[in-house]
């Protein structure tokens, strides 16, 4: 499901008279089970590309295929269905539903999917323990630090073992140690379950984990290299 193919993607934004380039003729193929990092300066189009892959935003031009889905052709409901069942998201800025506790946020997607309460409760508890939030299950987002919220978001993205995880700056609020833990967790999930990861980051420590490193600038892919993942020294 998770092989991704982007053909000639263009996306511009209009702010008043100004035209801002988000994506500029992007061609990209990602195979099932790859572990990819998107890097590039701020404003280079990383978030825009991830949003296009997740069907959160429609490009002006071009085609995107994610597994069996022609993302640019799906209706709102079909997109929701695809995101619900096949993609785990970590967003850059706003991730948690404020009126739900940590564990409820993690369970949210499974609940909408209709997974039985006992099952999803156990899974959510286990994953929260794994990201180091044992004991904080019932905290609301407002009562957690940015790093803790980030962990909840990551836990929610992977709890269901989706085919594809799209993570936008997942380690932004984390210290080096936690960031390393997360990346180890991602790599393990990638190896054991073949989950495809596409992670955008500014962080060179994160890039070090990737087998494939894509650099963007001004909405274009300027480098696309295979590398030997070397992790980070903690």
């Amino acid at each position, binding site marked *: 499901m998770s092989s991704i193919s982007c053909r000639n993607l263009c996306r511009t934004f209009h702010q008043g008279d100004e035209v801002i380039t988000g994506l500029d003729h992007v061609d990209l193929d990602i195979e099932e089970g790859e572990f990819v990092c998107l890097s590039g300066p701020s404003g280079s189009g990383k978030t825009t590309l991830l*949003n296009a892959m*997740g069907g*959160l*935003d429609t490009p002006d031009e071009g085609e995107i295929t994610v597994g069996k889905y022609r993302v640019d052709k799906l209706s*709102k*409901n079909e997109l*929701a*269905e*695809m*995101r*619900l*069942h096949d*993609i785990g*998201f970590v*967003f850059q*800025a*706003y*991730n*948690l*539903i*404020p*009126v*739900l506790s940590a564990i*409820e946020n993690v369970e*949210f*997607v*499974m*609940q*909408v*999917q*209709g*997974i*039985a*309460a006992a099952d*999803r409760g156990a899974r959510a508890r286990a994953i929260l323990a794994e990201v180091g939030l044992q004991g904080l299950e019932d905290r609301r987002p407002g009562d957690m630090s940015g790093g803790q919220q980030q962990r909840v978001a990551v836990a*929610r993205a992977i709890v269901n073992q989706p085919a594809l995880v799209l993570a936008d700056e997942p380690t932004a609020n984390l210290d080096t140690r936690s960031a390393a833990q997360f990346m180890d967790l991602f790599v393990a999930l990638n190896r054991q379950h073949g989950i495809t990861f596409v992670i955008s980051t500014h962080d060179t420590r994160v890039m070090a984990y990737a087998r494939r490193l894509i650099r963007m600038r001004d909405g274009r892919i300027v480098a696309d290299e295979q590398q030997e993942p070397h992790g980070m020294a903690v």
Partner: protein
Amino acid sequence: MKRGSLSVVSTLAWRNLWRNHRRTLIMLLAIAIGVWAMIFMAALMRGMTDEMMRNGLNNLPGEVQIHQANYRDDPSVANSMAPPAGELARELARPPVAAWAARVRVPAVVASERDSRGVTLLGVDPASERAIGSLPGDIQEGRFLEDEHDRGLVIGRKLASRLETALGKRVVLMSQDPQNDIADRGVRVVGIYRARLEGTEDQFVYAGRAAVQEMLGIGDRVSEVAVTAHDYRAVDRWYPQLAAAVGQGLEVAPWTELDSFLASYLSVQDGFSLVFMVVVFLVLSFGLVNTLAMAVFERVREIGLMQALGMPPSLILGQLLLESLYLLGLGLALGNLLALASIRPLESGIDISAVAQGMEMMGMGTTLYPALALTDMAMSTAVVIVLGLLASLLPAWRAARLEPVTALNTTM
């Protein structure tokens, strides 16, 4: 919809409702007061209508009348009927019939030494008249008839003054017998009654039924049988039973047919209650729509987030409608309780004589008896729920149509 999604939607709806306590409480109070006003107003109207109906039906009298088929065209003694017997008598003896009275009702003339007036002579059996509630309420002088053999006459105050007669004096009662010959007899005025309307005092005179039958030479025949079940709104449900039981040549008519003014008044009242409720709700709906639109506006980002996570638009819509439904439901519960608490103690009557002179003209007294009815409570509930959800549809629909990425990016 899957069970899990239903429970997450209801959790979200309930918690979001209490996110802005103040706003929710104010809206709740507004709905509760609106609902209270709807029910209170309906109860007042119902009380007024009930009383007017009771008075009207007491004069008619009865909720259903049985006549000889030609009687209503020509209410003369020639068109009389035999008293109820057989199957009709059995129907009249069982519920829902609560009481009935067989009476003679003929045009007549009363003459005193000074003057004479055309009247309607009622030959009644006091006991059964009392049971259907058609006795004159207020005997000002003397007494009412003792039984159907009573040979006295009870007349209205107005008639007494027109005839310049008084209690204990003799007058002459004249009418036609079935052969169109004059039947007359001298009688003593044994009672003078007072009615709400002077027209009534002027028109109706009461004599013992047997005495009138004897004077007219009609044996035990009567002009009409008046029947009541003490539930005028339900008459259409039971009068056909009677219609099936009467023999040939008789006609059964419900009050709605006998007095079209009362019937139309009743439907106007029911319609007015509904209109009043809708108007109150329209005022409320501005607040409701505003509250919900604010809620959507404040939550644009999390709505976008939920959509981005794969919550389908229908569930977003459902969540906001449910939130609105919770608010409406709580407001309704509170409003109904308020109504119950405020109307119950007033059911014994509110004296409005100070502000309501002239109400008697409409067949109402100067005391209001608010009547709390389940139908009014149900009607206000239906109005609030149906219109409330309709009003909520627009903001909820807007929310469901948000583009996830635009919503997520909105900075607040």
